């Protein structure tokens, strides 16, 4: 049952082969028995999940089920869920129970999906290895001692380990695509503004975007059908019709123009990875797509620009965590300053503090122009690179990551090396474009992803390309050895 995709489970529910309660029990049991190996969940929602599953079965019996009614799934613990603790991977919110649902959570609820629980993540979505969680590191199901990537490492590991058929995630600089690559699953970061950020704990507001983690492109399309759409509660959400993303999955790729950025296939890329990615792209050519090389000349500036803009926004976004109204408060503060200093010193982890410091510095008088404004200019150049490129191509492809999963502790002492994990993914966020990672190869037995970047609001085309690829190949069906 747990090997089935969302699409298959929806069919099984529809056929009456299984009930939502049975499905939910099955996944809850798997989480209970196996998640100690992965630590992919922070909160498991047993009671509520079973209650929701019963309601879903009743709804289906009444005949007004949606494709999601009764399907178990999980939320990254960054989405606020009414009445269910939402920690964002931080001690700061370790006791926080929101009285409201994020729009994404509300939409899944409306569709009748059953939330199994909240998945682990790097604290406040800052990290690329899921080693920055107050609730402990997450282990990649592909190997003991391997990181799942981050920040949505819990969602990725849970999907890869078949503890949930699908999970929500967020991507600020690669937090969906990089862990999807490392865990051998399918991840989609939509266009900025496509999915509401309301109720999604903010890291860097101009970059954050909610998205999907599932095993297939088809499931991703089903997820996006629920998540996408205008939300008046998010001023940056965009009012634009939402297509049925499943409707165009099987469209022909004949004549589709694929661009390969020269900058992504430089000498620095491991030739083995480069070849694996080229092999994957060759599959698209077999289906009639045309490949050409393109230039994204400002690519090398993406990481530096990102590590000014994202920390700048985070330094301000995280100011609300001050120990005054909710969340962690230090014990017996002497005075206001002590309350602020100790609540924040004790409530935040090192990476979060590092980024708050960097961001505060970048916004300070005397540095603002040189850092923040400069980075914004670079951001526009990067965006313009993509706008130019999409005049000639429909989809840009390349590796999602430089290499497959690395080991726990391997990069924790060197933040800059860790930041380079997102070297291929970050520019997509800076430009606000949609991007996907799909399993494309195994390297030394570990999965690695192919990244697809589309034009604004061209998620349907990405899903179409990814789905056709998955129809033609079986990389997305590979499972970690030893998976129970």
């Amino acid at each position, binding site marked *: 049952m747990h090997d089935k995709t969302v699409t298959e489970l929806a069919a099984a529910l529809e056929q009456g082969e299984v009930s939502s309660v049975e499905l939910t029990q099955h996944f809850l049991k798997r989480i209970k028995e196996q998640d100690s190996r992965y630590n992919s969940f922070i909160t498991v929602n047993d009671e509520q999940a079973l209650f929701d599953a019963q309601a879903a079965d009743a709804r289906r019996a009444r005949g007004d089920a949606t494709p999601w009614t009764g399907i178990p799934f999980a939320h990254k613990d960054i*989405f*606020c869920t009414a009445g269910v603790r*939402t920690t*964002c991977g931080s001690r700061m*919110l370790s006791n*926080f129970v*929101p*009285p*409201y649902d*994020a729009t994404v959570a509300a939409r899944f609820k409306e569709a009748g999906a059953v939330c199994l629980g909240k998945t682990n993540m790097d604290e406040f979505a800052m990290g690329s290895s899921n080693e920055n969680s107050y609730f402990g590191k997450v282990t990649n199901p592909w190997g003991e001692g391997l990181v799942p990537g981050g920040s949505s490492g819990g969602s990725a590991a849970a999907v890869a380990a078949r503890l949930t058929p699908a999970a929500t995630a967020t991507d600020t600089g690669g937090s969906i695509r990089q862990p999807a690559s490392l865990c051998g699953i399918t991840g989609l970061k939509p266009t900025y503004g496509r999915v509401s*950020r*309301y*109720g*999604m*704990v*903010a890291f*860097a*507001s*101009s970059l954050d975007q909610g998205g999907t983690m599932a095993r297939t492109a088809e499931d991703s399309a089903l997820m996006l059908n629920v998540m996408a759409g205008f939300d*008046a*509660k*998010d*001023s*940056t959400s965009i009012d634009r019709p939402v297509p049925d993303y499943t409707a165009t999955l099987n469209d022909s790729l004949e004549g589709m123009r694929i661009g390969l950025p020269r900058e992504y296939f430089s000498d620095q890329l491991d030739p083995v990875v480069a070849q694996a990615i080229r092999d994957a792209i060759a599959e698209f050519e077999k289906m009639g797509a045309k490949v050409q090389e393109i230039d994204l000349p400002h690519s090398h500036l993406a990481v530096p620009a990102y590590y000014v803009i994202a920390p*700048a*926004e985070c*330094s*301000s976004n*995280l*100011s*609300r965590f*001050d120990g*005054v*109204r*909710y969340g962690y408060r230090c014990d017996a503060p002497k005075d*206001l300053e002590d309350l*602020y200093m100790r609540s924040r010193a004790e409530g935040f982890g090192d990476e979060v503090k590092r980024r708050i410091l960097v961001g*505060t510095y970048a*916004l*300070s*008088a005397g540095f*603002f122009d040189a850092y*923040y404004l400069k980075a914004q200019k670079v951001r526009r150049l990067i965006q313009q690179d993509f706008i130019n490129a999409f005049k000639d191509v429909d989809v840009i492809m390349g590796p999602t990551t430089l290499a497959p999963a690395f080991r726990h502790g391997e990069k924790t002492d060197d933040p800059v090396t860790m930041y380079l994990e997102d070297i291929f993914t970050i520019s997509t966020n800076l430009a606000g474009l949609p991007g996907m990672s799909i399993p494309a190869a195994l390297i030394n037995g570990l999965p690695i992803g192919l990244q697809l970047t589309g034009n604004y609001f061209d998620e349907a085309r990405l899903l179409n390309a990814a789905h056709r690829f998955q129809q033609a190949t079986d990389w997305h069906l590979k499972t970690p050895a030893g998976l129970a």
Partner: protein
Amino acid sequence: MQWEVVIGLEVHVQLATQSKIFSGASAAFGADPNTQASAIDLAMPGMLPVLNGEAVRMAVCFGLAVNAEIAHRSVFDRKNYFYPDLPKGYQISQMYAPIVGTGLVEIPLENGETKQVRIHHAHLEEDAGKSLHEDFHGMTGIDLNRAGTPLLEIVSDPDMRSAAEAVAYLRKIHSIVTYLGISDGDMSQGSMRCDCNVSVRPVGQTEFGTRAEIKNVNSFRFVEKAINAEVQRQIELIEDGGRVIQETRLYDPDANETRAMRTKEYANDYRYFPDPDLLPVVIDDSYIQRLRDTLPELPDEKRHRFTENYSLSDYDAAVLSQTRALADYFEQVVETSGDAKLSANWVMVELSRLLNQNDTPIERCPIAAESLGQLIQRIRDNTISGKIAKQILEPLWNGEGTPDQIIEKQGLKQVTDSGAIEQIVDEVLANSQEQVDNYRAAPEDRRPKMLGFFVGQVMKASKGKANPAQVNDILKQKLEG
């Protein structure tokens, strides 16, 4: 040494929107603490601001009223600092691209001339909550009802040269915002607050002296006193060989002096940057034109019209046009009474006295303008005398009925029946033989003055109801005939 005072004001006007600037919570004043604070106002995780279009409309209306440039594209920025009543750890404001650009207002000077004061810009921002330092046993209470209330901060150029000018400017701003109906302008409830930038320089010097900023002054009177106290301080300081330092100060009304704020009470690096949660506010010409078409008559226009149409003096027109409520009241009185000058006198003298005595603003005046108009009407048609009318004002205030009802009930109708008046005159003359004799013996030129005694007696005997003109005539007739 002769000193010149240089003043610029930053006026914070609370906009009279129903809900807050970035959330749907009510912006009404006076509710129980924290009952009007939504998850957005509390800065709960994941909450996002959504701009209230009414606040934009009001800001643009203000801009149009002061002939300012309206920015077609303005941007909200974050002003970052930590304070317990600032839930997000930043205030959403407009630093780099405010919605209202440079404008101009005219203020009346004491010598009867007017002066132009330039508006540097005006921007939208949200208010913070309130810290309550009493009643919590060594702790501080936080009330977030006010957090997120829309403010328009109006920043003047340093164009004022005395505390009186600063007050005149502040009154003008007050007058404009209340005319526009974009604020109740109630300074006692904090709807208008003022930061005063004050410096002095030797007369003739072109460059400005170092300024001090007096924060959060909340009444016209205190603005005047605070500026005068600060000017005094700066002059004494410099004359004693000291130097003014640029700093933030607070006015203490009890001691009538300004004091430096502790440096911790204000941060010096707010790390402004554009708020990525909000889109730029884009306004097109048709929107601006639509609002321009809805603008009410503004104070200056109204004052002009009052002098022209009602032949009021400049002074009377200025007083009566100062607030829209007073002007509207006055015009309503004129409409009912049919006499502008008499109406102006009654509103400015008799009614004002009652309002002051009862500490009641014109908005809450219990005497309807129509009632006052009717009262004046009754003076004009000789139903009552002006003196009787003054007696009726009090019962009117107390809600004892319309002027006609009170006149009827209390039998105050003027006696105009000459037979009845004659009878009273005869009685008075009969009882005042000595005065009658004196009158008749007196030379012509002294008689008018002596007539007053008899008029008084007759009015007294008639309980003030006899028509004074008739009394005069009949008395003269009887005494001289």
